[in-house]
């Protein structure tokens, strides 16, 4: 994976962003900043994820606060923001009576590609998402999975700096979902395009994203830097021995581990980067110590999400 440029502006900055629609407050004073390559928007249905994406695209006017996308101000440079974005909407969307290649080419030209370049890249984008053989078929005849893929192709065709994906795995069967997640992960790993992924599926967000914004009732319930958490928790281990063993404690300390004893026979270790659980098993084997349980402790996104949902956040 290519690291994000530290000198680049944050991908997304929200400063008290509020949105009201039809007399209802949908987003309430969102303030956060995200700089990593892949940002996840998590939340239950109706939390405001799609509204946030649409607001960033300029579809809904903010009623308060401001937002910046890739360093561009939403209020003053909406068109500039949209020039940098590839958007894959949640709902079924296509141009009537057109073939896939015609549709994707049109979208490329609308984003500013010259006609010939748009045609070439439309073919490439369709091959990339796995619709190469179906590119001359009318989009209206596509299955749900193919329609999702062609929506991804049209979002990619012009080479955006930020890809906004709204529930990209909606309606996909497991193999198609896997393929979609692989594609999005591949785009992220190429390092030239940031991703803003909205989903209510924890697994999708955890697989793809480095940072997560959890929304609840239109307010920020939690933000977390998954990448930093992964680094911090990579070597945090809980052990339960069959019997207390000072020799084992000394041995793992000699490996460079910080050891804390919770109670007799139960240890907490922080392992140095060069060590792995394999070394612990080897020491236990050498000393004849039985290990009843070994947990690599790490807050999963599910833990974080459930905590956020249980907490007294939001309340619009």
């Amino acid at each position, binding site marked *: 994976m290519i690291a994000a440029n530290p000198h680049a502006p944050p991908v997304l900055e929200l400063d008290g962003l509020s949105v009201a*629609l*039809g*007399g209802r407050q949908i987003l309430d004073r969102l303030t956060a900043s995200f700089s990593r390559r892949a940002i996840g928007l998590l939340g239950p249905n109706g939390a405001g994820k799609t509204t946030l994406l*649409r607001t960033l*695209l*300029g*579809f*809904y006017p903010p009623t308060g606060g401001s937002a910046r996308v890739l360093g561009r101000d939403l209020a003053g440079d909406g*068109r*500039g923001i*949209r*020039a940098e*974005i590839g*958007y894959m*909407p949640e*709902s*079924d*969307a*296509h*141009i*009537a*009576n*057109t073939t896939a290649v015609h549709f994707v080419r*049109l*979208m490329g*030209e*609308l*984003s*500013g*590609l*010259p006609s010939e*370049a748009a*045609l*070439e*890249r439309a*073919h*490439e*984008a369709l*091959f*990339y998402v796995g619709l*190469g053989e179906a590119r001359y078929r009318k989009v*209206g005849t596509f299955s749900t999975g193919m329609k999702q893929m062609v929506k991804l192709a*049209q979002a*990619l065709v*012009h*080479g955006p700096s930020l890809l906004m994906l709204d529930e990209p795995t909606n309606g996909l069967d497991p193999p198609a979902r896997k393929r979609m997640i692989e594609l999005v992960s*591949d*785009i992220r790993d*190429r390092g*030239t*395009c940031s991703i803003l992924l909205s989903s209510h599926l924890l697994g999708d967000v955890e697989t793809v994203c480095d940072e997560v914004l959890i929304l609840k009732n239109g307010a920020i319930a939690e933000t977390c830097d998954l990448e930093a958490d992964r680094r911090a928790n990579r070597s945090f281990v809980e052990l339960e021995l069959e019997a207390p063993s000072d020799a084992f404690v000394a041995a793992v300390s000699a490996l460079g581990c910080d050891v804390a004893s919770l109670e007799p026979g139960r240890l907490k270790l922080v392992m140095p980067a060069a060590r792995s659980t394999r070394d612990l098993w080897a020491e236990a084997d050498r000393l004849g110590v039985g290990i009843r349980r070994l947990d690599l402790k790490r807050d999963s996104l599910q833990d974080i999400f459930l905590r956020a949902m249980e907490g007294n956040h939001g309340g619009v």
Partner: protein
Amino acid sequence: MAVYERIWRRYQGGLTPLGRRWTVITRYALAEAFSSRIFTAFYVLCLLPTMVGLFLVYLSHNTGLLEQIGMTREFVGGLTELFFQLLFSWQAIPAFFIAVIVAPSLISADLANNALPLYLARPITRRDYVVGKIAVLALLLSPTTWIGGLAVFVLQSSLEGGGWWREHWRIAAAYLIGHLTWIVVISLLTLAISAWVRFKPAARGALFGIVFILAGFAEAVNGVTSSSIGDLVHLVRAIINVVLWIFGLPLRNDLPIAASWLTLAAACALSLWLLHRKLRAHEVVS
């Protein structure tokens, strides 16, 4: 087309100017319209009044040919202003049919397939979108109306000579202003209705309904009130009055010409408001 790359990569080349992006919408919509052979054949038929007009002008100045077919120049009638008025009507009516056929495909199909978010998530605005769609109708209707009318006028002027065009400049003005006004009115009206009625046959029916039911309503009001007040909603009479006014002929009612302009302006304003209300990436339900 051969595909050399099957990986995703960023685009490094130049971009087209932002101000010209709406032409992409126009170009694709025109291609879509002419992908139908039936429509293409109909469109050629709509050019027929202009062709006949050009032929009659040529014929009226070709004594030899007239003699061969046993006619005199008087038969053609010396191409009076009445000829040009009739030709105007025979151009304007097919133009309305072209708009009725094409317009519902322009916006209602995009709305039905939820395509608007795809357009508006790109660096184009709602105004670009409407301009792009109106340009389709303007490009389709212009050759069959004012361009054809002016071609007949230019041919007549060049064959007649002797400063004929100076004496009859009102004909050219009527073709230019009258047809352009008609194009703007029916384009906005047809687009507005197609934005609100997503089912194409229903949209076409609504377009006919609005024009002809309003005409009938206007006649009924005129009959009941023994005045011309009903003509304030009679679009066809309004455009006819505008053309007659430019020709320097008496109007079809006793209202001032400003009333006809007002009717047309109100139709345009209402259409723009309807488009403004409907053409959004996502509707917000209160």
